[in-house]
């Protein structure tokens, strides 16, 4: 199945969800991406992308029961769908193919 290509940020989010497994919700996803990409992410932008990914069918979300330490608010947990996994794999393959055969200098010169 061919899928739409994913943006870099979208890939980061999907990968973060995979990393986090059962514990993937707003706070942890944001921290995971922030930690690895070293840039601050606004929560509004995060959810905009998560929603889009959900609409595309790459993610699925579920509201948890309210937890007291969050002021009695629920968490929204995200899990990767099969379509999401396919899309990730395809994105990676495309990129890898593009990188193939390039000299190592370019890889290193990126600071």
């Amino acid at each position, binding site marked *: 199945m061919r899928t739409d290509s994913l943006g870099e940020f979208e890939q980061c989010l999907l990968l973060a969800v995979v990393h986090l497994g059962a514990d993937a*919700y*707003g*706070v942890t996803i*944001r*921290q995971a991406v922030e930690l690895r990409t070293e840039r*601050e992410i*606004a*929560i*509004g*932008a995060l*959810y*905009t992308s998560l*929603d889009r990914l*959900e*609409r*595309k*069918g790459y993610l*699925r*979300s*579920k*509201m948890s029961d*309210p*937890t007291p*330490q*969050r*002021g009695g*608010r*629920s*968490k*929204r947990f995200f899990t990767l769908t099969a379509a999401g996994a396919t899309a990730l794999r395809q994105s990676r393959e495309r990129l890898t193919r593009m990188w193939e055969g390039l000299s190592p200098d370019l890889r290193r010169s990126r600071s």
Partner: protein
Amino acid sequence: MTLRPPRLAQFLMARSLSKSDRDAILGDLSEEFTTRAFSSGAREARRWYVRQVRRSIGPNVRRRVTDLLFRRAIGAPNRRGLSSVEALMTDLRDAVRSLRATPGLTIVALVVLTLGIGATTAIFSVVDAVVLRPLPFDEPDRLVAVGERTTPRKSPPGGKAAAPLPGPDMSRDPEALVRVQPQNYLDWVAQQQVFESIAAFADNGAFTLRVPDAPPEDLVVQQVTASFFDVLRVRPLLGRSFTAENEVDGRDRVAILSDAVWRSHFGGNRDIIGRTIPVNDGNYEVLGVMPPDVTYPVAAVRSTDVFVPYVVPANQRVRGRGFSSYLQVIARLTPGVSIAQAQAQMDQVASAIEQANPVWAKNLKIGVRPLRDHLVGASTRSWMLMLLGAVGIVLLIACANVANLLLARSSGREREMAVRAALGAGRSRLVRQLMVESLVLSITGTLLSVVLAWWAIHVLRGAMPEDVARVGAIGLNLRVLVAAAGLALGTGFLFGVIPALQLSKTGLTNSLKDSTRAASAGRGRQRLRGVLVVAEVALAVVLVVGAALFIGSFIALMRVDPGFNPDHVLTVDVWPRAQPDQRPPDRAQSFNDIVDRIGHVPGVVHSSMIANGMPLGVRMRIDRLVVPGRTIDGDDSVSVKVVTNDYHRALQIPVRSGRYFGPSEYRGGANAMIINESTARTFFAGEDAVGHVARIDKKDWTIVGVIGDVHHSSLETAPRTEVYLPMSQSEANSGQLVIQTRDDPYTVLPLVKAAVFAVLPDVPVRDVKTMEELVARRTAQRRLSMLMLSLLGLLGLVISAAGIYGVLAYVVSQRTREIGVRMALGATRSRVVAMVLLNACVLVAVGLAIGGVGARYLGATARTFLFGLQPSDPRAFAAALLTLSIAALIASVIPAHRAATVDPIVALRAE
């Protein structure tokens, strides 16, 4: 230190999120906030929180909009919806981007839209609330006012009349009803069959609340017949209303409170029903409390506080010697009866009454009129409709201008469109793009205009003259806003989309082939834009001529010499209340005492008092003046003023011959009288009146002086014949203190109050104002008209100037290459400038001509509002045409300058 996220930031975040998102996202934020507060301190955490919110609001709002269009439910993926929503978002982004690319044009369009829609909404909201909206009662179409009609009488029957005189408006309102004599009202009730119910009420009663340990307080009271509540079909919310049984002496001490007074004075206590409240002349039992939305007069600035029964005084049940007209009568038509039928029957009733009482009811006319028209008044109505017309013109100019701007814009984009189409954009895609652009423009303009309208309504409500009805009901009218915005939107659509359709019709190749700058707009479209400019100019001429006429009227009014000097004059009402059924006692002696005491107050130059109405008031007493041995052909009635000796000095009314009143006027002395110039002209044409004897009030008076005329009822009406009698030699039961002071008039007020209190301790001091304030109040409507029309005229001027500028600037930019060629071939700069200006001149001249003719015709409708000049006043027209020409010239200068500075080399190389 608390561990709460910043409240404002949290609030903003919550508001910007849709409900379904709120829980998860706010939860995430507060969870992380807590973690951060522990690891890096509360201050750092708070800073982080605020930063997060600041950067999230944009995406949040965008997402909400998408959600709204898409109706997303969590966990319900939808591929088709996705594409259309995202396409729309793309369109929106493109539209904003392309509007931003031409900032000047966009800003002009937005300003024009905002002013046009905002001004229209504001004015229409006011007009709707005051004039158009039905009365807030059940079946309001059946409510009528019944009154007596004014007929010119040589002299009132029975000698003396205390009839309230027509206010300044009535002279312009042929339909106006005057108040009714109780005797007549009783006959009407007995004889009519066209009204389901009919009621009378009087507003001249007193109701001074005397709560122990609190200063006495006047409440606004209406004495109403029990049927009042049937006519309006209103019932107290608490308790009950009174019945006809209460309309007899002894049983009439019952009251119904308004909701506002019940809450403000009695704490909103429900047990008020059945309690008695202490009032000046005894105790009243509270029977009921009216619902909060029921006020009468409707939405007045100061509405009725308390309703008490009206009892016809015994001496007013029969037709005796004197009469007074003070009742207002309202009625509800029987179903199926038209106003004309009601009028016909009341005409019969009138002639029956006249037959039975030939002297008393001579020329009695009864008028029936829709209650709403009666409350609002014809002059206010047409005044407001005229304002509405003016603002409508502004809206039209605005629409023409926006159309013009959009046309200019699309002509400049012909190539862009052609390229897009060549690259595969379908026709519908192009049309949609243009539609979205005009939509974005219109919606932004509408939002801005809501702010403008809201503010303008606020200002207008404060500026309304106080006699305008229903001012309290004025508020932002959403229907109007929607209508005005719809008109702007329609204009935007029409003129935004036409070019796109035209483009696809003519074919792309032409546009692309003609890719040089020489390609200018099609001839048809240019002509359309010329027509729009002409229309704008013509409409602006109408507005500016109107503004000039009103400014001229106001100047003429300001030039009127009132006949007295309002500088440094304080006036105070001294109005001892009397029972309506008793003859008010004579207070002349007490008044003289008060005036004497005030004369000794430091800072007072002249202390005086006048009974029977001071200048620019509505009260007046008319009587017949008889000069023995002379018969007068015309009107022998005079307005009688009773004044203390220094009155004319306090107002600096000039003496023409003879003298002012002085110490020789005292009780028991020789009767003296002062007359004004009009009286002298009427009764003693060509000779000196001083020394003659005239008869009034069954007494003979020697004329001791002739003084200048004073504008008594209003500045606009000519002075009438007046005579002044000394207060020491006649009677007075109420009046106004008129005090000339050396400094600020209000500084003497405490001692004035003390003087009144010392002589008449139970009379509250009312209606304190300076003469200058009174003059300002009486010119308020004219001032407001002038300001409004000037403002609207200015708006029209600016908008149409912007239109002229836009067209010329565009023409110049389109013809840059042509100008370059001309200059390369030897055209001088002045010739280029002349070419551009000629272009402007043709458009403006046609507009001025059409507008001038239109203004000439429309001016006639404003005739009744003008003062001191004709609707065709050449000065007003000249001023307006000149102003517009100058504005047009200024608007043309920049494009002309731009054309003149075209560098031929650059222009030609640009190919």
